[in-house]
């Protein structure tokens, strides 16, 4: 079976998984209004890193100034996950997978200087990370819009199942820029206030910076505290490139695939995508209802971090594992009154649970959807 070895989250809420979980459990968020940042004509609300904090943390690792902010984030997160283990990253049995949508896209801005233009390529950004750790393998970059973070974990499971590698360092990251913020603004997808997932008054998403890492390995005998990545699935809506399916087609099919013949009563919660756009959250309620999971609690974490894009799937999986380790279902910050057609069990308060499995669900542009079933002690 495929099990988690270690993890890390670097976000505005902290530089470790423990700091992030404690902040989220306490209901904290760094979603703030930013006026005039990056010369953008309109203000926006986002969860952004204190870049000095990243610079300082990175300076402890290396005095090399050749890395971009994005590259420093991914190297730091991978390093912090690796240093909890005795894994030798120089081994050819260790593979790095990077989940990102836009990497160093800010380098396309002609006003940005100091870095070679080739670093805008996602593979080159990933190579900065593998070169840092002297890893000999070609890094795999998964770039499947907002579902990338779950896709990267599914990819990691497959690489380990097929026996090609013994460890996969799965890093998800995106950092915000004028490119991304203006694009979402042009789509009218951003909320000017902190977002309200699944709420009747939700009016869009917020964006966020984050990097998160999970290291996976293969293990024959599972003990009760091992986190097992049981099943993952990616399915397409085959409906529209920028709007979700009204029937929740891809999410429904992904949910059905990861459930298999498992009894849904064993599932503590579904950690939804919950971007707080009108269409996404409605679609998820349809998919969850169709999959026969309406009686399973649902939560969403975008009210703490905004949408962290390539990081989201990894970050939200880690926090969900932490929550179950703590017998907790995390509150959906920003949610007040149900605003989707199909009733979901949502709460803006932390709730106790004794169950040991959860599903992480994501959907994204290109009509893609992904789900992964995680169970502690292999309970599924």
């Amino acid at each position, binding site marked *: 079976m495929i099990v988690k070895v270690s993890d890390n989250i670097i976000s505005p809420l902290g530089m470790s998984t423990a700091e992030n979980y404690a902040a989220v459990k306490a209901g904290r968020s760094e979603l703030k209004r930013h006026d005039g940042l990056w010369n953008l004509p309109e203000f926006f609300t986002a969860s952004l890193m204190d870049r000095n904090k990243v610079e300082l943390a990175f300076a402890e690792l290396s005095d090399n100034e050749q890395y971009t902010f994005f590259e420093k984030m991914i190297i730091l997160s991978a390093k912090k996950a690796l240093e909890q283990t005795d894994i030798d990253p120089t081994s050819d049995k260790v593979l790095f997978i990077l989940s990102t949508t836009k990497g160093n896209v800010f380098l396309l801005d002609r006003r940005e200087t100091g870095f070679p233009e080739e670093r805008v390529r996602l593979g080159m950004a990933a190579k900065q990370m593998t070169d840092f750790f002297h890893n000999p393998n*070609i890094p795999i970059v*998964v770039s499947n819009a907002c579902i990338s973070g779950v896709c990267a974990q599914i990819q990691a499971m497959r690489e380990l199942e097929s026996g090609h590698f013994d460890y996969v360092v799965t890093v998800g990251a995106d950092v915000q820029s004028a490119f991304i913020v203006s694009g979402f603004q*042009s*789509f009218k997808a951003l909320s000017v206030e902190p977002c309200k997932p699944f709420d009747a008054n939700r009016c869009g998403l917020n964006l966020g910076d984050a990097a998160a890492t999970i290291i996976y390995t293969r293990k024959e005998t599972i003990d009760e505290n091992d986190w097992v990545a049981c099943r993952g699935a990616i399915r*397409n*809506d*085959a409906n*529209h490139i920028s709007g979700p399916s009204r029937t929740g087609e891809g999410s429904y099919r992904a949910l059905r695939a990861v459930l298999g013949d498992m009894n849904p009563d064993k599932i503590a919660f579904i950690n939804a995508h919950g971007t707080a756009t009108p269409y996404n959250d409605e679609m998820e309620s349809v998919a969850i209802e169709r999959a026969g999971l309406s009686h399973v609690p649902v939560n969403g974490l975008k009210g703490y971090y905004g949408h962290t894009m390539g990081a989201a799937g990894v970050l939200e999986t880690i926090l969900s594992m932490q929550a179950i380790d703590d017998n907790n279902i995390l509150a959906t910050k920003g949610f007040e009154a149900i605003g989707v057609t199909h009733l979901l069990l949502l709460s803006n308060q932390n709730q106790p649970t004794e169950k040991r499995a959860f599903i992480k669900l994501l959907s994204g542009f290109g009509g893609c959807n992904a789900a992964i079933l995680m169970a502690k002690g292999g309970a599924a």
Partner: protein
Amino acid sequence: MRHEVYITPNEVKVDGKALNHKENGAALLTELYRAHIGDYPKFFKMDTLCKLGFVASELLLQAEGAPRFEPREDRAVVFFNRNASLQADTAYQATIQDPENFFPSPAAFVYTLPNIVTGEIAIRNKYFGETSFIVLEDFDEKTMMRELQNAFQDPMTKSILGGWLDCTDENHFEAKLSII
């Protein structure tokens, strides 16, 4: 047999046989669309990566000759490239580069993700299966084969429309797709 399509700005091959054409570069994709497809006007809204993937997948599926447009979940679409959505990224950046002429375009922004092309092909063919886009710094046959073989670990997936699909700008692209 294993069907394969190869397209560059001045060469088109289907199952190893050269396909006649007059145009090169961006105009080649439009020529191929008009000569061999013609019933999907959404083509004209697409960015270069999507146009390339759309035309290449159509030629490939025509060569396969199997019944089409029946909803199915057992075929995955898995592409690889080096430059992700660079052509669309550059086009979108141009809409925000000048503060005096700042008009971010949602129509341009939507294509700034490489996996949009996998969605376009899923929509056209009613494929509800896995769609994936993987970026590799180098064209590496061994890694791509490993990833494609790995994709069959999903018990739903019985065939994959996949391969290399890359473009740097409107006139520079390469598609090497097959059905496995």
